[in-house]
């Protein structure tokens, strides 16, 4: 039988507001343990929450970017449970009346746009950070003692819940990349999984291909990169298929994914069912955003990443377009092309050489000149120029004046010297290891201090080794 994975994602986004969700403590890393705390976020008797207006606006903005309807009335509720990281004994979270509902995100694929429904996006406060010392598992059970750092407690979190519309680990990865880019472009979070400002849980089940049933799902937690999310989903899908194919039943369970071993470890089942006893938080009034605010926020939205991928796809291919957009490089790309650069060449240079560079700081006109001159100027000059392209006042002119050595007469003796120094590799190449071409080119480039034109060198090496065979 052929099986279809059915995956829903729950994403937590830590907002980078200046202050916490319900108090004026600084929101952010850097302070020593328990230095960014006050009576409110420590849950002292009588302390009351006051909502952070910016956090509410950013949540609405994110909801709008995800195509959600904005609730005219959202209500914070209390989720009650005891845990040392929860100072009030309850978490304040939107529950049955969230701020954003019924959105959708289009994920461009080779076979068309795949739609992933957004069930809801709601605002809540984060718990504190606990460190369980001693014990084998690093969890509270068996620990000798536990340390709590309340700096993170009460920081604003948006939880996004998708429908069970993700049917492959690749779709999950693509969706998360688009989501992350959307969040980063809104300027509301750094959305870095490694730092925990973006957290992803996956609810995974499988069903026979063609069926529309929803079978028992398992929850995967603790995956701290997109790659691990994809690996975790693949591992869980394979596990469930194996269970069904051996005649078993999948039992609802929560698993931690261990990236190092690829193993899934079931968390110890709780003795009793969770009953969070939700009720509307009486210390807060409902969130009722005025229509003008919602419209203002909507007008501030950037063009959605999916639409931009489709636009770029017309001149590039889907993968290149996706890399540019999800890397936040597409606007630079478009400006560079508009400044006269060849589209594929510009895409390659930007995607391969400028990842991690602050694209907004780059002068596209200067970059376009570098792209056009990329084969003509020495590689060393190009490398140096691309390394400095985001610096203020960068000018391509000094680099454009340099010419790469393309004169074969000048290059031939150097090529000969390289061959002489590496007789073994020469023999291997002639024996069919044509992959060594790059090695020879690299050696010549090194000999010339990066001044040679690599395309010319490449042709020369190939000709010469062919000639003398």
């Amino acid at each position: 039988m052929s099986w279809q994975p059915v995956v829903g994602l729950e994403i937590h986004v830590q907002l980078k507001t200046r202050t916490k969700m319900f108090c004026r403590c600084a929101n952010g890393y850097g302070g020593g343990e328990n230095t960014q705390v006050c009576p409110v976020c420590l849950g002292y008797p009588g302390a009351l929450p006051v909502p952070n207006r910016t956090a509410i606006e950013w949540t609405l903005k994110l909801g709008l970017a995800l195509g959600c309807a904005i609730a005219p009335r959202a209500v914070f509720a209390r989720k009650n449970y005891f845990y040392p990281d929860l100072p009030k004994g309850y978490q304040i979270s939107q529950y049955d009346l969230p701020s954003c509902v019924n959105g959708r995100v289009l994920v461009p694929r080779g076979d068309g746009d795949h739609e992933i429904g957004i069930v809801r996006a709601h605002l809540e406060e984060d718990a504190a950070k606990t460190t369980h010392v001693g014990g084998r598992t690093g969890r509270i059970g068996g620990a000798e003692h536990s340390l709590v750092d309340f700096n993170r407690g009460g920081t604003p979190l948006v939880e996004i819940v998708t429908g069970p519309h993700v049917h492959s680990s690749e779709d999950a990865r693509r969706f998360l990349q688009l989501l992350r880019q959307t969040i980063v472009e809104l300027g509301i979070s750094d959305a870095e999984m490694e730092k925990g400002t973006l957290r992803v849980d996956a609810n995974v089940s499988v069903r026979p291909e063609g069926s529309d049933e929803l079978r028992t799902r398992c929850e995967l937690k603790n995956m701290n990169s997109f790659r691990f999310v994809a690996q975790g989903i693949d591992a869980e899908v394979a596990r469930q298929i194996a269970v069904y194919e051996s005649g078993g039943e999948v039992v609802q369970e929560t698993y931690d994914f261990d990236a190092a071993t690829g193993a899934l470890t079931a968390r110890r089942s709780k003795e009793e069912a969770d009953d969070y006893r939700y009720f509307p938080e009486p210390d807060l009034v409902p969130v009722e955003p005025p229509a003008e605010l919602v419209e203002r926020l909507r007008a501030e939205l950037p063009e959605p990443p999916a639409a931009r991928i489709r636009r770029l796809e017309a001149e590039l291919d889907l993968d290149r377009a996706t890399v540019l957009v999800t890397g936040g490089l597409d606007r630079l790309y478009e400006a560079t092309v508009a400044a006269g650069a060849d589209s594929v060449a510009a895409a390659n240079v930007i995607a391969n050489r400028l990842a991690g560079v602050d694209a907004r700081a780059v002068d596209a006109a200067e970059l376009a000149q570098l792209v056009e001159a990329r084969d003509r100027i020495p590689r060393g000059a190009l490398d140096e120029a691309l390394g400095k392209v985001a610096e203020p006042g960068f000018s391509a002119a000094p680099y454009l004046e340099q010419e790469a050595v393309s004169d074969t007469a000048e290059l031939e003796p150097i090529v000969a010297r390289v061959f002489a120094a590496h007789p073994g590799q020469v023999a291997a190449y002639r024996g069919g290891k044509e992959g060594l071409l790059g090695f020879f080119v690299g050696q010549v480039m090194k000999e010339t201090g990066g001044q040679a034109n690599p395309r010319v060198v490449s042709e020369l090496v190939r000709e010469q080794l062919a000639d003398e065979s």
Partner: protein
Amino acid sequence: MSAVVDTLRLTAEEANGLLARREVTAAELHEAYLAAIAERDPELHCYLRTLPYEAGEEPNGGGVPIALKDVISTKGVETTAGSRMLEGYVPVFDATVAERCRAAGLSVLGKTNTDEFAMGSSTENSAFGPSRNPWDPERVPGGSGGGSAAAVSAGLAPWALGSDTGGSIKQPSALCGNVGLRPTYGTVSRYGVVAFASSLDQIGPVARNVRDCALLLSIIAGKDECDSTTVELPEPVRLPEREDLTGLRIGVPKEMNEAEGIEPGVAAAVARALELARELGAEVGDCELPRSVEYGLACYYLIAPAEASSNLARYDGVRYGLRVDADRFSEMVERTRDAGFGDEPKRRIMLGTYALSAGYYDAFYGQAQKVRTVIAREHAAAFEQFDVLVSPTSPTVAFKLGEKAANPLAMYLSDLLTIPSCMAGLPGLNVPCGLSEGLPVGLQLIGPQFSENRLFEVGHALERALGFDPVPERLR
């Protein structure tokens, strides 16, 4: 040389006069009350702790002293809410009302006794022993704010702050024979006040007369950025002047004046007050609040415990207050809460946890909130015909210590008449209206939201006409 201060009779307004004329200093005033406390409080146990005078930064050299119920956080001063759980807990911040009192130059005399976490109607639930009624020390002062009410009546404070969830200001004021206001929900900040039931808790003044009560409200009321449920008063508090009630329409809700359990002496005192109101020019008519009275108490005992079960979850032994150590976290929490909470908080936590549980929420908490809307509408309808509604504050005069302690339901019925308007978020004023069996009877005046000024005018006019002597007979 300072004037002789008769703390039993001195009103806050008079004290302000003495201070303004420099006939007494704030420190001397404070000392006079501490002396009275030293003399009478060993018997009455109104205070859990007293404080020496601290020279304030007021340009006028400070003002009238005040007593604060021990649910109100005071920076640097132990605040227990009457519970072992918070024994030794010293807040690092002032409640907004405490801060406003200090900013107005009021010196804090001390923290007054309360039923544990303000849960009770007699102060018998205080972990630190009950307070006693200054009119008869064999009897309770009411609760939960019995300490504040008894202190004011016994001349151990010119005025005090209480907190009221279902009657904890009005009922003790009735039983002790003074004036207590539960303000409109949202007009006084709850920030820093140990929470019992957030959607019902209100802070309010207890005073010897209506004008002092109004004066104290003007000090504490108004929007607070730290409490998002607060609003600005639509009009400033006015000290009442009028001595007649011409044109006033008084409604007498049948169910609240004929309820089973209202003592004949209480009913008679209220009837005399209504007769007096007519003589002062008021029109008095009957009205009905059938659902408010029939369902008010039951719904209150779903909503208040539900919120309390959540509000009291923070007492887990992790950060402050009592901790009973154990090997595991959950065991530490269980032991701490078992040792720290008395029977009444435990009873209400269990009731509330049940009412919020999955499968029961709709039938209990959800339904009670709907009834609350019905109660609010029923009151609003009555206020289309009447300016104020009147009833006894408490069905009985002060009862004896131990009389109801073993029967929680009988104790809960003490609040039968105060609860409906609390559920509707409405202001209510207790004014003493006479004696029954030598004990004070309280008249409850209920008004629409934000009608405090009207309540003060009515209360003031009746107070003048009634001529009630707020000093307990045995202390005169």
